[in-house]
């Protein structure tokens, strides 16, 4: 690649940031090594390949769209949920400070590709071939399915007839734009109209308001929403799509994926991941 002068400055800045990132990272991992002897081997390995770049020195910044309980949600200004606990655990394992930055779901992957916003995307992101073209995914940490919910007083769409009734041109299905729920609805109910929302909570509100007949999305989230604010809606259809949730990282940062994978493996091993899942799904 020929570097023009205009490209040089950001490149130089990036390189400088990278250099700081490495320094910060290795320092921190060294600190971890000292405090937790069990992790010595793995932590040393992380600092060993030393190419992991961080957006902010000593901090692991995750982009998240906190409208997706029980995975990510804001409660009194605090980031809570399965993903949020996982992010904190991963950062702690890597000896980094965990920082969350709020980006709309459909903007997370572009933000990771562009860089400069966050190190990784952690927002109930399912692994899909399209997304894999853009970013690297860590090992999956959770497997989720799809669910469709309607108002409880809806007699036209019931559990018995859902798979046929939803596939009618008179039906409007609210989805989160860019989500696997939107894909699922388009693939399985091609005749229905789709109403996409940037924010998943709004899709539920749209069903309440009568703007849509049904809402389609990841089962764990639908369950959580129905258990909370939208108790007058009920699930009519579930499908075991087995989507794997993973953390998205820029393709320029394979070392970070390795580090995150290591953390996930360790957290799975010592039962922390199961604890986090049990705590948030209960």
């Amino acid at each position, binding site marked *: 690649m020929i570097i023009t002068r205009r490209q040089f400055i950001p490149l130089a800045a990036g390189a400088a940031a990278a250099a700081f990132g490495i320094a910060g990272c290795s320092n921190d991992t060294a600190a971890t090594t000292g405090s937790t002897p069990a992790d010595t081997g793995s932590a040393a390995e992380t600092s060993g390949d030393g190419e992991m770049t961080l957006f902010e020195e000593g901090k692991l910044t995750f982009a998240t769209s906190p409208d997706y309980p029980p995975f990510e949600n804001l409660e009194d200004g605090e980031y809570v949920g399965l993903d949020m606990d996982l992010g904190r655990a991963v950062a702690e394992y890597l000896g980094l400070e965990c920082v969350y930055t709020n980006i709309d779901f459909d903007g997370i992957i572009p933000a990771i590709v562009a860089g400069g916003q966050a190190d990784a995307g952690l927002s109930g992101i399912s692994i899909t071939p399209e997304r894999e073209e853009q970013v690297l995914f860590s090992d999956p940490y959770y497997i989720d399915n799809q669910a469709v919910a309607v108002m409880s007083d809806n007699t036209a769409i019931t559990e018995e007839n859902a798979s046929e009734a939803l596939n009618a041109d008179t039906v409007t299905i609210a989805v989160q734009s860019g989500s696997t729920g939107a*894909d699922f609805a388009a693939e*399985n109910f091609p005749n229905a109209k789709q109403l996409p929302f940037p924010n998943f909570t709004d899709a539920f509100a749209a069903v309440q308001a009568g*703007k849509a007949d049904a809402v389609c999305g990841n089962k764990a989230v639908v369950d959580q929403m129905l258990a909370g604010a939208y108790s007058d809606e009920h699930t009519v259809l579930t*499908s075991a799509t087995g989507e794997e949730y993973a953390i998205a990282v820029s393709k320029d940062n394979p070392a970070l994926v390795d580090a995150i994978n290591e953390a996930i493996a360790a957290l799975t091993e010592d039962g922390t991941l199961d604890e986090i899942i049990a705590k948030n799904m209960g």
Partner: protein
Amino acid sequence: MNSTTRRHIPAAMLALITVMMSCCMLLGAAAPAHAMEAVKCTGRPNSDDDPTIIMGATQSRITFEASVEEGEGVTQFVLHVPDGTEFNTDDLAVTLLTGDDLMTRTEVPYTETVEGQDIVLDFDEPIMQAGHLNIIVYDVLFPTEGGDMQVGASYTTSDGSADGTAIEGIPTIPVQGISKTEQLSQWLGEQPWVQAWNSNRFLRLFFDPTILVTSFPVVLSGFFMSIAIVAVAFPLAIPLGLLLALMRLSKFPLWRGIATTYVNIVRGTPLFLQIYVAFFGLPLAGLNIPNFPLGVIVMFMNSGAYMCEIFRAGIQSISAGQSEAARSLGMTRAQTMLYVVLPQMFRVVIPNLTSEFILLYKDTSLLAAVGIMELVMYARTIVASTGSITPYIVAALFYLVITLPLSKLTRILEDRSRPKRGRRRRIAQANAAAEAAKAAKAAANTAKEA
């Protein structure tokens, strides 16, 4: 899917009774096996134009699901991918969905072999558990010309009741021919200069030619939507703004109060919130308005408040002498307003109205938040699926197509209404005065005749 299992229960019981009865008579005779049945067979839509269309020669995925009965003992399963369809078995996913709600994922260890268009799955253990066998084939490229794709499937059981028995009634997957833009995009993707261009991350993210061509027609339909909203909302906002302006200038405190409150609330809150309130609030109040008219209503009610201020300022900018002269000629307040003040006011506010039009046009983008398919929402859906910012750039171009010529027009109009030399102003003033007098005289005459 639930319904299918439920339908099977009586059938299964009936079969069971038959089996028991026949067992009594003919020991060891193979029961007429409850055959595997196709539950679903779908392709993943892959078009940016329409989220439900499956195109040929573009990445897709086949999801096939068939029911397996308890104790069926399936040892081999063959999935026949439609002829002319390319596929890849690297990411092949084979799972048995079990449990009452078919939500439990059970691994069924298998060895796969590919023979032409057939994917042959030999299961390590015969499948005895009831459930749905779910197979997902990735990296599927349907034939370029499209058509109804028929996936075939056959299976073999351990008891020999089925040996390569074909599964009937598999739904076809409707595939459309590849679209012109997608074809162009794929061609571009193969060009060395495009690859070189895309190797730069900034260029790839913002100006990816392959996404540029596919998103253009999609965003174009959003452009028409945005234009349609403004085209209806703007003319409606003018009378509303005028009415509010006249109310604010009225002598009656009640009118003034209503108009002032409305204008202050609308101008004092973000349009974004007004959209949310209208979109989620009105239906709860029993007013269920479809998306397009709702978008128009919010936009025109918002714009009306801003126009009120433009008109009020315009009316106040007409010198008091004008209306005093008209009044002294015997015109009523209404006549003065209608024949003397408003015609002059409109000329003064045209540049401001043009800017208001530009603002309104740009503000339609906020309607994306509630799923109204306008410019930004279309761009947004492609951004979400491709992870490239390019569609936003395309959307920006569509805004500029309207806003740049209009800004130029506003400038010309401003130059024209702002006289550069004193002489011209005097002439203009004299003309205006003469016009006002003429109008007043005409009005007075009509009043007299009446």
